[in-house]
C-alpha cells in the first residue's frame, strides 16, 4: 500500500510538472455567428435613387464603437423594395436566416413622426412572414428613425405585427436603429 501511495504521489508530482510546461497560445475563434453588420437597401420602384442604411461593428461588442452610414436620399411619396442583409466576419448570414425561416422574423418599427409604411414581402416555409424582403412606401417629408430587429425563435402565432414584435417573445439577435430622413 505504501508503495502504491508513493507511486500515486509521484504521479501527482509528474502532473504538476507537465502542467507547468504546457503553455500554448489560445486559438482565436472564428466568430461566424456574430453579427457585425446590418444593411438595409431600398430599391426604388420609380425614378428615385437607391438608398442604403448601414450599421457596422466589425470587432463585436467590445473594442471600437459601431458606425452608421447612409447613402442616397429617401424621397417623399415613393415606394421601394427593401432588402435587409446581415453580415458576420465570415460573410453574409442571410442564407442561414432564410434556411431557418420558421425560427426567424425581422421586424421594422417606424418612429412616430416619420411617415413610412413597411410591409412584408416574403414568407417562410410555413407561409408566415419572414422580413428579409419588404415593401416600403413613404408619405410626406420628415425625420425619425427605423428600428430593424432580427428575432430568433419568435412565436409567429402570437399576434406580432411588423411594427410590434413584443408578443412574439424569442431573443433578439440584432436590433439596430437607423436615423431616417424623408425629403
Amino acid at each position, binding site marked *: *500500500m*505504501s508503495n502504491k*501511495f508513493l507511486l*500515486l*504521489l509521484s504521479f*501527482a*508530482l509528474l*502532473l*504538476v510538472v507537465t*502542467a*507547468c510546461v*504546457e*503553455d500554448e*497560445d*489560445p*486559438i*482565436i*475563434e*472564428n*466568430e*461566424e*455567428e*456574430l*453579427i*457585425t453588420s*446590418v444593411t438595409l437597401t431600398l430599391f426604388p420602384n420609380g425614378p428615385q435613387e437607391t438608398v442604403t442604411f448601414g*450599421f457596422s*461593428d*466589425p*470587432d*463585436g*461588442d*467590445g*473594442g*471600437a*464603437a*459601431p458606425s452608421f452610414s447612409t447613402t442616397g436620399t429617401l424621397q417623399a411619396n415613393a415606394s421601394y423594395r427593401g432588402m435587409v442583409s446581415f453580415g458576420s466576419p465570415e460573410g453574409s*448570414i442571410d442564407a*442561414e*436566416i432564410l434556411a*431557418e425561416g420558421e*425560427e*426567424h422574423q425581422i421586424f421594422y418599427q417606424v418612429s412616430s413622426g416619420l411617415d413610412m409604411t413597411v410591409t412584408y414581402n416574403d414568407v417562410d416555409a410555413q407561409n408566415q412572414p419572414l422580413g428579409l424582403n419588404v415593401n416600403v412606401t413613404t408619405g410626406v417629408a420628415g425625420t425619425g428613425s427605423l428600428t430593424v*430587429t432580427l*428575432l*430568433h*425563435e419568435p*412565436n409567429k402565432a402570437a399576434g406580432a405585427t411588423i411594427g410590434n414584435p*413584443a408578443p412574439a*417573445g*424569442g*431573443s*433578439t*439577435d*440584432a*436590433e*439596430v*436603429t437607423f436615423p431616417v430622413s424623408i425629403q
Partner: protein
Amino acid sequence: MARWMFRCFFLALLPAIVWGQGGPVTVSGTVLGEHDLEPLGYATVYAEKSGRGVQADSAGFFRLTGLPVGMETLRFSHLGCDPKSLSFRLQRDTVLTVLLHHHDNYTETATVTARNAATYSEQLDLRATAQLGDALERLTGVSSLRTGTAAAKPIYDGLFGNRLSIQNNGVAQSGQQWGNDHAPEIDSWVAAYIRVVEGVEALRYAGPTVAATVLIEPAPLREDEGAAGKVAYGFQSNGLGHTLNARLSRGGKTAYRLSATGKVRGDQRTPDYFLRNTGRREANAALQLTRFHDARWTSHLYYSIFNAEIGVLRGSHIGNLTDLQLAIDREAPFFTEENFSYDIGSPRQTVSHHLLKAETEFRPNPDNRFNFRYGGQLNDRKEFDVRRGDRDDQAALSLQQWNHLLEGTWHRELGTGRHLDASLQYELTENDNQPGTGILPLIPDYNAQRGSAYLAYHHEKAAFQYHLGLRYDRQAYEAITISRDLPRRIERFDHLFHTLGGSVEARWQLTPRASLRTGVTLRQRAPQINELYSQGLHQGVSGIEEGDATLAPERSLKTTAGLVITTASTTLSANVFVQPIQDFIFLEPQPEFRLTVRGAFPLFLYRAGDALLYGSNLQAYWQPAPRWELDGRLAVVYGTNRSEGRPLVFTPPANLRLAVHFHPGRVAAGWQISLESLLVAEQGRLDPEQDFLPPPPAYALLDLALRRDLALPSNRTLHLRLSAQNLLNTAYRDYLDRQRYFADAPGRNVELQVSYAW
C-alpha cells in the same frame, strides 16, 4: 431535529488524572472523536441527577463544577447525537477523556465552529435529494444566491462567490466559481459534514475568501468497523424526480467506502405553470480508501466524479434589454408549455468535475502530527445557448480547468490544551477555453500559481481560551487574453499579489451556562481573474461586464462577538459582526450605455470602493418536554457600498426559520413529525436604479415532514420519510434568485424517501 437518529457509540471513558478531595466536585475533560482523536467541539455534557449541563468548547473541552459527591449519571452527546448515559460514583475532582464513536450514515454538523454557535444537527441524507445549496441554507447565517432551479451558491454574512470559498474534502473547490450561476460541483450524498468556519480556522484554508469558508467533508472511515451498506431511493413530485444512491463500506486495515448516485428530474412547476427546461440529470461516484498502516501512520485516497446536465429556464434566455423588459412584464415566462417534460434543451450547462486526493498522516509521537496532501481537480464546464444554425449543440462557453494542490501540515502539541498548527501550500491552476465555441471567451485563459504559509497557536485551557493565526499568500497570474479590437491579437499579462491574513479570537466561559466569544480577523483577498479580465455580455442579466487589470487586493477586517447561554433544555446564541472592506471590488454601472448590434446595453466595470457589512444571528433551541423540540433562527445582514453611498446588491433580506419537532409515542417507536416555516422579509435596502425590478415582497413557506425509522432484525434499519416543501403551494419570488425577473419559484413538492441500511 431527529436527534434520536444519530447513533453515537460510547466507546471508552478513560479517567485520566484524579486529584482533590471532598466537597462539591468538578468533572472536566475533553470529548474526542474515536477515529482520529479530533476534538468534538460543542459536545454537550449533562449531569442527570444534578440536572445541570454544559456545552464543550470548540476544542471539545468541558467543565462541570459543583457536583455533589455520590452516584451521578453523565450524559454525553455530540451535536445532536442521541444522548448516551454513563453512571459512576463521584468522589473527587475528575478529569476525563471521552471518546465518542460516530456511526456511519450519521449526520452533518451545522456548526459555525469558531462562533461557538448552538448547533443543531440534521441528517443530511434526508436532504440529499435536494441540491447541496438547500442543505447549506439550513445553517444559520447562510442564504443561497440562486439561478432558478439550476444553481445555488452559498452566501454567508452577506458574502458569496469569490469571497466565500468552498473546501471539498479539505481541497479548495476549483472550477468556475466566479460565476453566480455556477453551483459547486459536489454530490450532496457524499457530503456528511457541512460547516462554515471563520477566524483562525478559516485562515488555514486556501481559496479566495475574506473571512469565512465552507467545509464539506465525507464521513471518515474506521478500522474497527464491519461491512455496511445503504441503498436510498427518493421520489419528488415536483419535476417527477427520482434519486438513487447506493453505498458500500468496510472497515479494516484497508477501509473503503464506495458511493454512487443517479438523479433524474424533469421540468419543475410553480403553482401556476411548468418551468420549461428546468430538468436536471446527475451521475456521481466516489471512492474513499483509508489504509491504517500502524498506530502512527494512516493514508487516505479519495476520488470523486461529479457529472451533471442542468437545464436553464427557457424563458430566461434573452437577447437584449427590450427582451428583458418584455419578459418582466409577463405573468408566465415565454416558451411556457402545457405539459411536463424530462427533455433538457438549450440553454443548458454540462459540468463534470473530478477530484483526486491523496493524503498521508504520520504521528511519530503523541505530540507531533505531520500530514502531506495532494489534491488534483479537473473541471470541465460547457454552457449551451439558444443559437442560430445547428449551433445549439456547440457550446457557447467551454472551459477546462486543471488544479493541483500540494500541502504539508504540522500539528504540534505544546502541553494540555495548547497546540500549534502550521502548513505550507502550493497550488497551480491552469484554465483553458476549449476551441470551437465560435465566440470570444468571457474569461481569458490563465495560469495561476500560489504559495502560502499558515501558522496558528491555540490555547484552549479551561475557562479562558484564545487562538492566534497568521497567513501569507503569494498569488501569481498569467492571463492570456485576446484583444477586442481588430486585428485580434494574443496578449499576455503577468500579475503578482502578496496578501496577508491574521486573526485573534478569544472565548470566556463566564459561568457554567454562559460563554462569550469575540474575534478580529484581517484578511486580504487578491483580485480574481474575472475581476481583472472579464470581457463581454453576461447573459441573463443583460449587462456588459469588463474587468480592470489595475485592481489591488481587498482588505477586510471582520470583528465578531457572540454569547451562548445553555441550560438543560434550552440553548440561546446571539452573534454580531461588523466587517469593513477596503478596496472592495464591485461592478459599477456606467452612465453611458454601450451600443451593440443588439441595441444598447448597460455597461458595468469592475471597480474598487469601500464596503461595510454588519449584521446579527440569533438562534434559540428549546426542549420544553422530552418529546417536543422548538428551534428558531434569525439572520439579519446589512451591506453598504460607502464609495457609492448605496446598499450592496444581493444582500440577503432578514430571514427567520422556525421549527417544531414532535415525537409521538415512545421515542423508541421511531416516529417524528416536523413542521418548519421560513419567513423572508422584503429587501427594502436597494435603490431603484440598482436593479431592473424592485425586490419582491416578503414571503413565508411551510414544510412538513413525517419520519419513521424501523429497526429490523440483525442490525438493519429501514428509514421512511414523507415530506412536503412549500406545503401551501405559495407563489413567490426570492430576491436572491436571479431568475425572479422571469418566473415564480417552484411550488409544492412532496417527497418520499426510503432507505435501507445494513
